[in-house]
C-alpha cells in the first residue's frame, strides 16, 4: 500500500513544451472562471455601494431565518444520513427477496423536486383536514427529496471497500451488527459525510418548499430583503451567512476526504460475503427500502387522484410549447456547461498549479449559491448593459450547474493514467490533439451522463428561469409555479407531471451505474 516507492509524475512536469497553445487553454479557463464569478461580484459591489443608506443588521427576522436554515440543515442531515446509510448498507451487504429492484427504486425520489412534494402534500392534506406545516414536515420532505445522495455514496462505499477487514472480523466471530458498527460504518463515514454535505447544500438552496411550509429560511430572507424591503445590504449580509454555512459544510467534507484516502487503496475482492436475511428480518429490510420511494411516488399520486376532477387540461399546443422551451433551454445550457466543464477539467490536468486549481474551484461555487441570488447578480450587471435575457438565462444555468457537469469529468480524468498523456505528448500532439484523440473517446460516457444530469436540473430549475426569462417565454417549471402560487392546483397538474416524467427518465439513466456494483 505504500506508494512512495514509485512516485508518479505530473504531466506538466514531464511533458515537453509542445506549442504555446496551452496558454490559450489557460486563458479560456480564466475566462470561464471570471464569467462564473461576475454575477456574484456585481451583487456585492451593488450592495456595498447601495444608494439608500440602510443600517447594517440582521434584526429579529434575520436571526429567525438563520435559525430556520440551520435547523433544516441539521434535521435533514441527521435523518438523511440515517436513512441513506441504513438503506445503503442493507442493499449492499444483505440479501433478501426483491433487493435488486428496491435498490434501483432508491433513485426514484430524485425525480421529484421538493417544492412539488410540499405543494401536493399540503393540498392533499387540506382535503383530509390535515395541517401540513412547519419544521417537522419540512425536514421530512427535504429528507425524502435528498436522501438519495447519501444512499448513492454510502452504498458504493459499502460494496467496494473494507472487504478484507470484514472477512477477517467474521473469521473472529464478529456478527452482522458488530461488523456494521465497528468496521463498515467507520470506513464509509467519509462517503456518508460527503453525501450529507451535498444534500445539505440543496437544503440551503431550497426556496419553494420551505416557503409553502411556513419555515423561515435564509433563501427566502435574502429575496424578501432585496425585493420587498428594498434592502440590498441586508440581503448581501444574509447571502454571506448562507455562503458561510456552505463553506463550513465544504470544509467538513474536505476534512472527511482526507481521512478517506487511505481506505481506497484496497483492491476489491470478488468473494460473496453478504448476510442472508429471512423471515421478519427480510420483511423489515424490504419495508425500510420500500417506504421512502413509495412515499415519494404516493404523495404526488394522491394529490393527482384527489385533484383529478379539478384537472384543467392545458391545451396540447400550449403544453408542447412549454416543453419545447424547457427542452431547448436545457439543451443549450447543457452544451455550454459541458463545454466549459471539459475545458476547466482539462486545464487543471495540464497545469495543476495552485492558481488554476483555485480558479476551477471558484468557478464551481455557483452550485452553492441560491438560484435567486445568482439571478439577481446577473440582472444587476446585465440589466444596465441591456444584455439579452436569453443569454443571461443560459449564463445563469451554466454558472449554477457547472459543478454537476464537472464532477464526473474530474473523477473520470483522475482514472486516466498519466502514461497515456505522456505517450501521446511524446508523439508530438498538443493538448488539443490529446483531447480529441485520447481524452474525448475515453470521456464520452461521463460527459454524456453529466450532460444528462445538467439537462434535468435545468428542466426542474425555477428561480433563475422565473427571474430572467424573456417575453412570452414560460417554461414547464414556471407554469407550475404560477398556477401553484395562484392556488390553482388543477391547472398546475399537467406541466408538473411532465417535469416529473423528465426527472424519472434521468434517474432511470443512473440505474446501470448502480447495477455495476452488484
Amino acid at each position, binding site marked *: 500500500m505504500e506508494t512512495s516507492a514509485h512516485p508518479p509524475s505530473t504531466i506538466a512536469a514531464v511533458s515537453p513544451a509542445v506549442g504555446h497553445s496551452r496558454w490559450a487553454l489557460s486563458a479560456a479557463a480564466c475566462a470561464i472562471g471570471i464569467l462564473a464569478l461576475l454575477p456574484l461580484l456585481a451583487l456585492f459591489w451593488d450592495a456595498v455601494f447601495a444608494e439608500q443608506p440602510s443600517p447594517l443588521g440582521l434584526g429579529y427576522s434575520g436571526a429567525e431565518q438563520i435559525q430556520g436554515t440551520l435547523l433544516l440543515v441539521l434535521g435533514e442531515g441527521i435523518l438523511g444520513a440515517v436513512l441513506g446509510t441504513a438503506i445503503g448498507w442493507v442493499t449492499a451487504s444483505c440479501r433478501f427477496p426483491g433487493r435488486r429492484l428496491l435498490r434501483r427504486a432508491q433513485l426514484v425520489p430524485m425525480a421529484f423536486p421538493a417544492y412539488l412534494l410540499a405543494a401536493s402534500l399540503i393540498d392533499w392534506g387540506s382535503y383530509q383536514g390535515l395541517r401540513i406545516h412547519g419544521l417537522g414536515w419540512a425536514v421530512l420532505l427535504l429528507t425524502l427529496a435528498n436522501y438519495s445522495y447519501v444512499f448513492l455514496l454510502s452504498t458504493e462505499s459499502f460494496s467496494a471497500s473494507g472487504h478484507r477487514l470484514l472477512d477477517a472480523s467474521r473469521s473472529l466471530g464478529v456478527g452482522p451488527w458488530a461488523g456494521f458498527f465497528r468496521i463498515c460504518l467507520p470506513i464509509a463515514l467519509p*462517503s456518508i459525510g460527503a453525501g450529507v454535505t451535498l444534500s445539505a447544500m440543496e437544503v440551503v438552496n431550497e426556496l419553494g418548499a420551505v416557503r409553502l411550509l411556513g419555515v423561515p429560511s435564509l433563501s427566502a430572507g435574502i429575496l424578501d430583503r432585496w425585493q420587498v424591503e428594498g434592502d440590498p445590504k441586508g440581503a448581501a449580509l444574509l447571502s454571506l451567512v448562507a455562503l458561510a454555512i456552505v463553506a463550513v459544510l465544504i470544509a467538513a467534507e474536505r476534512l472527511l476526504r482526507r481521512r478517506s484516502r487511505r481506505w481506497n487503496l484496497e483492491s476489491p475482492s470478488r468473494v460473496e460475503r453478504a448476510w442472508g436475511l429471512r423471515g421478519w428480518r427480510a420483511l423489515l429490510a424490504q419495508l425500510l427500502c420500500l417506504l421512502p420511494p413509495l412515499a415519494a411516488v404516493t404523495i404526488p399520486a394522491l394529490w393527482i387522484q384527489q385533484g383529478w376532477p379539478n384537472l384543467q387540461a392545458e391545451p396540447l399546443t400550449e403544453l408542447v410549447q412549454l416543453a419545447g422551451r424547457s427542452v431547448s433551454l436545457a439543451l443549450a445550457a447543457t452544451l455550454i456547461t459541458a463545454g466549459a466543464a471539459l475545458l476547466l477539467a482539462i486545464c487543471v490536468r495540464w497545469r495543476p498549479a495552485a492558481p488554476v486549481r483555485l480558479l476551477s474551484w471558484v468557478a464551481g461555487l455557483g452550485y452553492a449559491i441560491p438560484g435567486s441570488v445568482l439571478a439577481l447578480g446577473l440582472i444587476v450587471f446585465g440589466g444596465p448593459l441591456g444584455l439579452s435575457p436569453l443569454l443571461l438565462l443560459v449564463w445563469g444555468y451554466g454558472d449554477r450547474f457547472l459543478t454537476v457537469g464537472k464532477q464526473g469529468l474530474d473523477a473520470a480524468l483522475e482514472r*486516466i493514467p498519466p502514461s497515456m498523456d505522456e505517450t501521446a505528448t511524446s508523439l508530438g500532439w498538443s493538448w488539443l490533439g490529446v483531447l480529441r484523440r485520447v481524452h474525448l473517446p475515453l470521456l464520452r460516457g461521463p460527459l454524456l451522463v453529466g450532460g444528462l444530469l445538467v439537462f434535468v436540473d435545468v428542466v426542474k430549475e425555477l428561480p433563475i428561469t422565473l427571474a430572467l426569462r424573456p417575453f412570452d417565454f414560460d417554461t414547464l417549471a414556471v407554469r407550475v409555479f404560477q398556477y401553484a402560487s395562484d392556488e390553482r392546483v388543477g391547472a398546475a397538474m399537467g406541466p408538473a407531471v411532465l417535469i416529473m416524467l423528465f426527472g424519472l427518465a434521468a434517474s432511470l439513466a443512473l440505474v446501470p451505474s448502480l447495477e455495476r456494483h452488484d
Partner: protein
Amino acid sequence: MELQDGERLRAWEAQNRVTPVSKFSAVAFGIRSSYPFPMIKSQFHPHVLHLGIAAAATVSLLGGITSAALAQSRTQVVNVYSGRHYNTDKELYAEFTRQTGIRVNLIEGKDDEMIERLRREGSKSLADVLITVDAARLQRAKDLNLFRPIQSAALNRDVPANLRDPGSQWFALTRRARPVMVNPSNVNLGLIRSYGDLARPELRGKLCMRDRSSVYSQSLTADVLQRAGRATTEKWLKGMVANVKQPFFTSDTPMLRAVGQGDCGAAVANTYYLARLLTSDNAADQANAKKVRVVWVKPTHVNVTGGGVTRHADNPDGGRRLLEFLSSPTSGEGYAAANNEYPAKGWGNNATLRSFGTFTASPVTIQQLGQRNREAMQLMEQAGWK
C-alpha cells in the same frame, strides 16, 4: 506488466485524491471504477442517446418555431410585465389586438421580481406596462420612479378616484375584497360585525389567518391602521393574534377548506378563493365551501390589481390604450371575472359573487394602504404575527 500498471494506477489515485465526492461522481456518472485498466466505457448505448438527442432537438425546434415572434413595428406592440397569470387574460389581450391591431407581449412572474427586474433594467427595459397585485407594490413601483403619469379621460372616468394614483401614475383594474369567512356551526354569525371583533375573546382558538408575509394580511392591517390609528391597532393586533389557531396559513385555499371542515371557526380570506371552491368541479370542495358564510364586515377591506405605463416605455400610447381597454366596463369585467374578482366600478355579473351580496368598501384609498404598509408590517411583527 499487469502488476506494474495496477501499482501505478493506485499511486495515481492516491496522488489525485480519489475522494468520496469524486466517487459519488463515479457512481452517478457511470464511470467504470473496477479495473480492467484503463478503459472507461459508457453505460449507454450510443444509438439510444443519439435518438434521444435527435428527438429533443426536434421538440425544441418545434417550440422555437411556434414561439418565434414576428418582427413588428414598435407602435404595434405593447410589452407587459404582469404579476397576474390567468389563461383567460390572454383571450382579453387577443381581443385588444383585434380591436386595435396592437399585439401584446407578456412576461408573467412574481410581482416583486417583476418590479425589481424593471428597476434594474432602467432605461434599457423593453416593458411598456407594469401590472401588479397589491396596493403597497403599486406604491413602491411609483416610489422607485418606475411609472410615468398618463392623461386619460377614459381612465379617470372608469377608475374611481380612491382606486388610482392622485398623480395619475397607476390605476386599479380589479378589486379584491377580503371579508371574514365563518362556519356558522362553530361561530355565531352575529358575533362579527367589524375586523375589530376578531379580537373578541369568544373567538379564542377559532380564528385562522394568513401569515405575515402575505400582502393581503399586510394591507388589511394597513387599512385598520389608517382608520383606527396606531394605539387601537396595536391593541387589536394583540387580541387578534391571541385568538389565532396556530400555525398561520401560507395560502387561502387550505384555510377555507379548514373553515368548511370546522377546523377553523372564522378566517379572513379573499372572496375569489371561496368562489373558486364553490364553482370547483371537485364535489368535496363544493360541499365543503357551501358550509362557509361570507360576513361583510363594515367597512370591508379592498385590495386591487393595478397597472401603469412605465417610465421608459417605448410605446406609452399603446400602454395607455391597453390600460383603458382593461379598465373599460365591458372588458374590465372580463379581466375581473377571470379570477372571480370585482371590477374597479360596480359589482360585475359574476353569479357566484352576486350570491355573496354587496359590501361597503373601506374609505381608505389604495395610496394610503401603500403608504402605511411598512408601519403595518412592523406592528404585525411586534404583535407576534408569524
